[in-house]
């Protein structure tokens, strides 16, 4: 018979050693599968993956920007997750923020000074993202609706709303897109600092990471939301207004998603499409979980996911493989990482049934 037995607490160093060991095993398994299914040299494939991300300074900067954008959405979801409010509406909240930014750029682009415009974009995107998250939060707090379904459905509403405005602001007419907004005037484009158009986003998200870390671990509000997440009745017992904390936290969560939307529209894409969030709202869920909701660790987990994504794209083009092959490798690695947690918490014991004696 097989029994699953909980382990004694494992020292942190040992647990980390196991985690890195597992990643090495995962890479080996990926290599074997690559060699068996494609006949390619796995080492060369890994080399190509690294090339895809680090091949040139431009590639490095693009990777960093993408990591920053994914991290931004992940940071947004984290306070909600710490409160055990499963906000799966990151996608919609990012879209809402992006929509607000685009609206400012298109409608006010040549009417107000650029600094005022960017300030307006900032305010309206945060407000739009916050609103998109506050609606399900309100219903959760008031009527205990299921936040997972509610936030998920808000995504579709946001997508349709964006689709509608893309048609309204179609440019040029008949293209079905809004094109690059304010291409000539660059009104509402976030400033390029130090001659590097990726730098600003990276810096802003780095600051946000530090801020979120402090907010969650050292602020009174961060403490309150942890108490609400762990035990709503304890929160009530000490006089914390649970519904108020839920709405407040989701306003923060949604506002940061809206901020990510503004970074996307005003900072990198300079356009608005229904797919501008590009699944980050969902990938961010994985980033946050892999890091166990620790903002510092999330830097690593968002990097891992983006690196795998770019690497997968690179091997697809270099070797003429299907893009899905990269996804398979990503899947295998994640499977190993998540599986590790089980073996860090439990161990497996085999016993011989006939004799009634247990041996390890």
């Amino acid at each position, binding site marked *: *018979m097989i*029994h699953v*037995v*909980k*382990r*004694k*607490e494992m020292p942190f160093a040992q647990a980390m050693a196991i985690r890195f060991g597992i990643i090495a095993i995962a890479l080996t398994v990926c290599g074997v599968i690559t060699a068996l299914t494609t006949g390619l040299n796995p080492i060369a494939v890994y080399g190509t993956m690294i090339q895809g991300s680090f091949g040139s300074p431009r590639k490095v900067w693009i990777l960093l920007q993408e990591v920053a954008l994914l991290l931004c959405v992940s940071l947004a979801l984290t306070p909600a997750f710490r409160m055990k409010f499963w906000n799966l509406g990151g996608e919609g909240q990012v879209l809402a923020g992006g929509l607000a930014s685009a609206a400012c750029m298109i409608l006010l682009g040549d009417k107000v000074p650029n600094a005022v415009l960017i300030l307006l974009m900032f305010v309206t995107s945060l407000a739009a993202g916050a609103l998109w998250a506050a609606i399900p939060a309100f219903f959760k707090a008031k009527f205990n609706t299921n936040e997972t379904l509610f936030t998920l459905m808000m995504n579709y509403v946001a997508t349709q709303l964006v689709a509608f405005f893309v048609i309204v602001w179609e440019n040029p007419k008949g293209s079905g897109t809004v094109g690059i907004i304010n291409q000539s005037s660059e009104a509402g484009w976030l400033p390029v600092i130090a001659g590097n158009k990726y730098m600003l986003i990276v810096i802003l998200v780095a600051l946000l990471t530090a801020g979120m870390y*402090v907010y969650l671990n*050292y*602020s*009174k*509000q961060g*403490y*309150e939301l*942890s*108490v609400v997440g*762990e*035990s709503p*009745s*304890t929160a*009530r*017992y*000490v*006089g914390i207004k649970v519904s108020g904390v839920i709405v407040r936290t989701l306003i923060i969560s949604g506002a940061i998603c809206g901020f990510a939307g503004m970074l996307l529209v005003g900072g990198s894409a300079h356009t608005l499409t229904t797919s501008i969030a590009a699944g980050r709202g969902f990938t961010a869920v994985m980033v946050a979980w892999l890091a166990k909701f620790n903002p510092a660790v999330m830097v690593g987990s968002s990097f891992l996911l983006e690196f795998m994504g770019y690497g997968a794209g690179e091997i697809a083009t270099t070797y003429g493989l299907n893009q899905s092959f990269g996804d398979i490798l990503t899947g295998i690695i994640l499977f190993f990482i998540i599986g590790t947690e089980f073996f860090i918490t439990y161990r497996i*014991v085999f*016993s011989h*049934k*006939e*004799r*009634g*004696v*247990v041996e*390890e």
Partner: protein
Amino acid sequence: MHGKQPAVSLRNISKSFGPIQANNDVSLDIYRGEVLALLGENGSGKTTLMNMLSGIYYPDTGQILMDGKPVSIGSPKDAFDHGVGMIHQHFKLVNVFTATENIVLGLKDEGGFDLKAAAAKVKKICDDYGFDVDPNQKVYDMSVSQKQTVEIVKLLYRGAEILILDEPTAVLTPQETDKLFAVLRNMRDDGKTIVIITHKLTEVKELSDRVVVLRKGEYVGEMVTAEATTQEMTNMMVGRQVTLNIDRPDPEMKYRMERIRVKNLTIKNREGVTKLDNVSFSAYTGEILGIAGISGSGQKELLEAIAGLQTVESGSIEYNVDNEQVEQLIGMDPLKIAGMGVVLSFVPEDRLGMGLVGSMDLTDNMMLRSFRNGLSPLTDRKEPRHLAELVVDELEVNTPGVDTPVSKLSGGNVQKVLVGREIAAAPTVLLSAYAVRGLDVNSSYLIYDLLNRQKGNGVAVIYVGEDLDVLLELCDRILVLCGGKVSGIVDGRTTTKNEVGLMMTKLGGGEER
């Protein structure tokens, strides 16, 4: 008796859960036709050990022998096949089914079900042993003691020869306990083997033939009950000499004043069921007011109403600041109550679910009530950390440090952390619900001592308890609840266990039905 072959032998059984060693190298024998008491403090591994015999857990190491032959019990069904059945503290019955339906549930007889025949068989078992249960009664209509009876009949119906009962009297009144003991004796005389898990010495004395003592997961010894004294058993259970008397200093009459006045309080729960019905009483400074009652008689609602956590249907709860100023507590939440300058401490029944946050460390739990202090948006952990260290020190909390999550501590230590925090606020009113539930003898006495010290400081202490012996020894006055109504308020110094027991089951006490 010991010349015979044991019905069950446990040999060198060990079991651990993560870092906690629940049982370590335990060996004991159970003989046919005896009542064996498995005695030990909470957390001494009694239930875990018996769970291994009944197939809930599987031992890490060691061996179980039945009639001398090694067996492997991997599931409750395996246990049944060997004639072993266990009645857990939480009953496993389907509410909308009748007694008989629950009893035959899960049995795989050939052909169709014959519920009539089954009911007749149930009736016969009941008559044989003197159980008081109607085979056709629905479970939701039953009292706790009747549900327990159904569980016992369920095992007998399946032909169990060895019955294990886990703390069977925890939910019973004294009268129901007597009835249970009578049928258990009948069963023993019929040749059944009974193991009761308990930490109450009076029960061991009254019912068992032999007693095996466990301490900290290990076997420490066994005695023939008739030849042992209560004191000997306690010493063996605790591991050293203990005194069994609870202090009860006389209240300081000079400063005595009415602190909390509850008038005509009625509370309904969400489903509209009346939980408290027109309850009125007063709590005075410098006394311990006990609240007795069968669990679920409205104790929880009463305390939560005073603490500002319960919506109230009607009535009033007044707090006397001094003889002139009176504050109404109804309609207030805990924050508003504190804002009025009323320091009201509350040790709730559900320690980790309500009083503390299990995943947070001692420091963070200490600041649950005080984290708002100061204007800074950031928390100050220096004070709470200091308080945590103080509580660990003074109450001898057994913890690796103040950075350990409280859920990793044992029940007694969790309670010390909670009580320590609540008392540190220097309250004027201290509400406590089942403050010693699950605590070992030492920790229990420490808690009684702390409550007495609060009483000495002039605090109005309200103590909801379940152990009548303790209520009678500790409290100055005892309010008895019965079905949400006040059955009476008696003097703790003059009342008897029997009187309180009768009042718990019937308004105003009186003769038993």
